[in-house]
């Protein structure tokens, strides 16, 4: 089925079309949720809530831009709402000092580089991780992040700076990125990361 046919079917509440949509986009969306969640179970709960909102709100998609982008926005909102509802953001949102963070290398499975990078992101404290996900990957501005997380814009900026530095250190320690070059093309491939 084409994306247009799937959308039309979902607008008509067709279970087959809804299943097609889910099968097509759930792997990527679960990845989005996993970067925000503390564990896989939370990620799946976020995914479930996000897709229910997507199916119930199909009428509000007005063909302005990519459908996947629209879905992704809803999924990110679902993740943030989940973290807020279960008060998980409040635990580390204002973490100021992180020098004592222990990088547990043994927790990072060495399979694929993408998975390694995601796992490195998930090593960050949840507040840092959320800001980094929203700014660096999802493309939100600091102003939008501040409104979304009920924090100051300056807090968002400072948390992002700290998160980025911490993540760089983790990626270097895991040899996922090379310290001796500035060019993206020379980021070490996974098979050299031994």
């Amino acid at each position, binding site marked *: 089925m084409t994306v247009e046919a799937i959308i039309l079917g979902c607008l008509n509440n067709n279970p087959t079309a809804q299943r097609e949509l889910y099968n097509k986009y*759930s792997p990527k969306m679960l*990845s989005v949720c996993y970067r925000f969640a503390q564990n896989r179970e939370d990620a799946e709960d976020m995914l479930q809530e996000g897709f229910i909102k997507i199916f119930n709100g199909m009428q509000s998609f007005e063909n302005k831009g*990519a459908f996947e982008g629209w879905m992704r926005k809803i999924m990110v909102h679902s993740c943030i709402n989940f973290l807020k509802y279960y008060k998980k953001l409040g635990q580390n949102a204002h973490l100021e000092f992180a020098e004592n963070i222990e990088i547990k290398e043994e927790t990072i499975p060495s399979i694929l580089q993408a998975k390694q990078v995601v796992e490195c992101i998930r090593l960050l404290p949840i507040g840092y991780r959320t800001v980094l996900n929203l700014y660096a990957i999802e493309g939100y501005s600091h102003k939008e992040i501040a409104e979304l997380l009920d924090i100051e814009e300056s807090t968002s900026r400072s948390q992002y700076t700290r998160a980025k530095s911490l993540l*760089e250190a983790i990626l270097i320690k895991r040899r996922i990125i090379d310290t001796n070059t500035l060019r993206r093309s020379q980021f070490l491939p996974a098979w050299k990361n031994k």
Partner: protein
Amino acid sequence: MNIFMGNSFYNDDELEEFLKQQANNHRMYPSDKVWRNIQESLHGNMRWPALGFFSVLIISALVVGTLIIEPGKKMIAENYLRSTKNTQPVILPQDAENAIILTEHFYPAHITQQTIQYVSRSLSSQQNQPPQEATAFNQNIVLFNNSLLNTSNLLIPASTLHALPVSKDIILTNRSKEKYIMPRTLLLSTAIESLKLPAASNYFQTKEEDIWRSFPLFTTAPTKQTTFPFDFEFYITPSVSHRKWVYNDENTKQAPSLKQMVHHAPAMGIETGFSLNYHLNKAFTLKAGLQFNMRKYNLDAYRYTRPTEIIPDDNVLNNDVADTTSTYYIAQSVAPDGSKKITLSNSYYQISLPIGVDWRVVNISKKLSWNIGVAVQPTYTFDKTVYAIDNDLKTYTNANNRLRNWNVNANAETFLRYKKGDMSWQIGPQFRYQMLPTLSGSSPVKEYLFDYGVKVGFIKTLSH
């Protein structure tokens, strides 16, 4: 290592681009539970209806096929003959072993004591020879029942009689396995024409007893005829379903306008099933069976969709999006401006085990009777969509997880039954009521479902 030393080894844009690329390449596959929960949230539990529907379809097809598709009567007769082939000889007095077996269908009730005494004397003079199957006469079987009264067939055609060897007796057996011996002495002493029965048109003018007195038939060891007291019934009841409300607590009672505010409407449902009936006596019949029910009623609601946040169109993904939540209000008077009227549907799919009794009140005629029936039905709901009033007394909430899956229903019915042969048909109104509340736990109102409809049934008398 001080990770906040401030030296970034990379251009910020390059790191962000790298992270974005890696994150977009990452895939994870959710467990099956996630989709099932999504599907259940959107459509309810979809698994059981297909199973229930196909179970009902298969059961109905088997029942209809058994009742309607019967082997032909000739096939029955031929199979009966074939079944007697190479079997032990019929139970006969020793003197009557030399006989030809013919199979006929006729009324055994017309055998009189006089004829029984006659054959007892005659049998003593028979020779002792083994009986032979009269396969040569298979084609001359005449079904001596009401359906053939309009034919001109004879009990034993003249050609058949002429072909009979005079040294042999004739043993006639009927459907009830009674054996009748026509001694050959009767054939010898009586002209062939006298064995002919009157023409069919004369049946209506002649008492059947007179026919048999002039045509003596003798029984040896008649099989005791017993009626099988079991029936098989298949029925279907198109019905209208609705609910009764009872306020649950004082707070709700103080909101007397609640029942006036909501608008619910009955909807069509159906019940179908089968039962095994046991006749205690001529008046009372016990019944037990299996039944599929679908109940439904509609609710008017007012949906209010509230946008929570609009994201401006100035970012990489270049989209506006509104996160929305919908609330269903019970009436327009309590719904916010901008609410849209919709119809929700409460539906219940159930399997029940009706156990009851029928009472034949009066026989209107030989074939028509008026009956009353009652039954108790333990019921299991295997699929449902239920909206219930929330504790705020203003909105509907999905209450699937609070449904009482096991419940008890009671039904009462009255019907006319028409019997023809071993088949009966019945039709009449039925009322069914749910004894326990639909939802468990606390809720502002208690709901009791009920249905009323017209039940149509087909009953087949079972035989040994």
